């Protein structure tokens, strides 16, 4: 069977298997990516991030419903942390989205971070490309609960929704500086909670400071309220996302972002290949020497790459 063709025709099982290969680092996944590349770059990739307990999954569930009402097919990548000790993970995000289980216009995939830092999993970029090529018009990427600077999703997504909640204590803790500089749509979820006015004022102030730094014609992030558990606020968020997409398209930024994603992918693949190539040359003796501290790691790495470069000079 031609998995790439099936995937491009929107066949769920084919897309699901391709993502599995990509997640597992199976070489067949990369062949698929090569074949589907021309069909990518169409989807609106939306990041949803925020601290743990902000209600991201419930908000995504609500956004799926809203996007479906607007006639869009929706792909979701829900990332949860893998254990750094065992590699295992409990991926529970789709529980909150279970009402979409039988909607053929919705594809939900749970992914463990598998050692990646930054709030995404190693294969999130590739998985987003698969969903894009399958014809999902909106691809929502829900990050792990983030702390301070785990904002890799910003580089992946066209539009990033930052989810805050009232009453997380120190307001600066609730949404860290890195997130504030990054997001395009801000949502105070659980807005029926005490402390919502305080959170609103705090975010308004920080967004005001950010607006002062931004140039003319820059996107002004809206600050919205939602109660995702009751489905309240979905339309305003979807409107804001559409406005942001229109803004990106009008400025040519939508296409430029796709280009930057390709560039990042290229660099990360090149890094991976270079590392693999160099490690192939790593003699057991060198590794033993590092472990036994007979050679410092800096010199060992330099020696390894010097050997790699010497043995096969790059083609001009």
């Amino acid at each position: 069977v031609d998995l790439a063709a099936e995937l491009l025709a929107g066949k769920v099982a084919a897309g699901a298997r391709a993502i599995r290969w990509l997640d597992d680092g199976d070489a067949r996944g990369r062949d698929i990516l090569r074949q589907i590349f021309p069909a990518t770059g169409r989807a609106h990739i939306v990041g949803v991030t925020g601290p743990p307990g902000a209600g991201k999954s419930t908000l995504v569930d609500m956004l799926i419903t809203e996007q479906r009402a607007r006639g869009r097919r929706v792909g979701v990548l829900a990332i949860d942390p893998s254990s750094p000790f065992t590699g295992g993970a409990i991926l529970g995000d789709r529980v909150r989205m279970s009402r979409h289980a039988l909607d053929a216009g919705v594809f939900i995939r749970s992914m463990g971070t598998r050692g990646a830092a930054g709030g995404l999993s190693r294969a999130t970029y590739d998985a987003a490309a698969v969903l894009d090529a399958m014809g999902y018009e909106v691809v929502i990427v829900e990050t792990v609960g983030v702390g301070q600077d785990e904002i890799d999703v910003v580089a992946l997504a066209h539009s990033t929704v930052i989810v805050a909640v009232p009453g997380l204590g120190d307001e600066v803790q609730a949404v860290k500086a890195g997130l504030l500089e990054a997001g395009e749509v801000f949502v105070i979820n659980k807005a029926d909670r005490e402390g919502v006015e305080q959170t609103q004022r705090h975010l308004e102030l920080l967004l005001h400071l950010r607006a002062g730094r931004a140039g003319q014609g820059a996107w002004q992030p809206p600050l919205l309220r939602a109660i995702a558990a009751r489905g309240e606020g979905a339309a305003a968020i979807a409107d804001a996302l559409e406005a942001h997409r229109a803004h990106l398209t009008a400025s040519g930024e939508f296409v430029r972002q796709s280009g930057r994603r390709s560039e990042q992918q290229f660099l990360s693949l090149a890094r991976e290949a270079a590392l693999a190539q160099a490690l192939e040359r790593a003699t057991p003796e060198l590794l033993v020497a590092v472990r036994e501290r007979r050679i410092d790691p800096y010199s060992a790495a330099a020696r390894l790459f010097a050997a790699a470069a010497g043995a096969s000079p790059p083609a001009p």
Partner: protein
Amino acid sequence: VSVAAPTSRPLRVLLAKLGMDTHTVGITVVAHALREAGMEVIFSGLKQTPEAVASAAIQEDVDVVGISSLSAGHTRSLPRLARLLHEQGAGDKLLVAGGVIPPEDVPLLTAAGYARIFTMGTDTREIVAYLENWRQQRLTADAAVR
């Protein structure tokens, strides 16, 4: 001396409950045991229909579907799930079940495609060992094919 490969292939397991019961202690304990064993455990929610579980299993491309059943009705819903997976081209997934399942129902479920029924009181280590053994056998078979 070995350098850790830049790839990892954890077993992916969908754990789900069919039917109306909301007893989650057993499924939660199993989930944690599997996570400790390095597996990726996906929850699809409570009160799921066989159709919803089949859809989740395919979207998540899991290796194993584990059903926890603590109410009657498993003699209908479990075979139905197996049939749906088969019909949708996902018959390669390992099907197991556990919970309150009377011994006299086991042959019916085995015939429906369930490889193993873990009855009440099963040690989680037994479940982990069973899945790891299955994975090992499948890796060997895959290697032979490719």
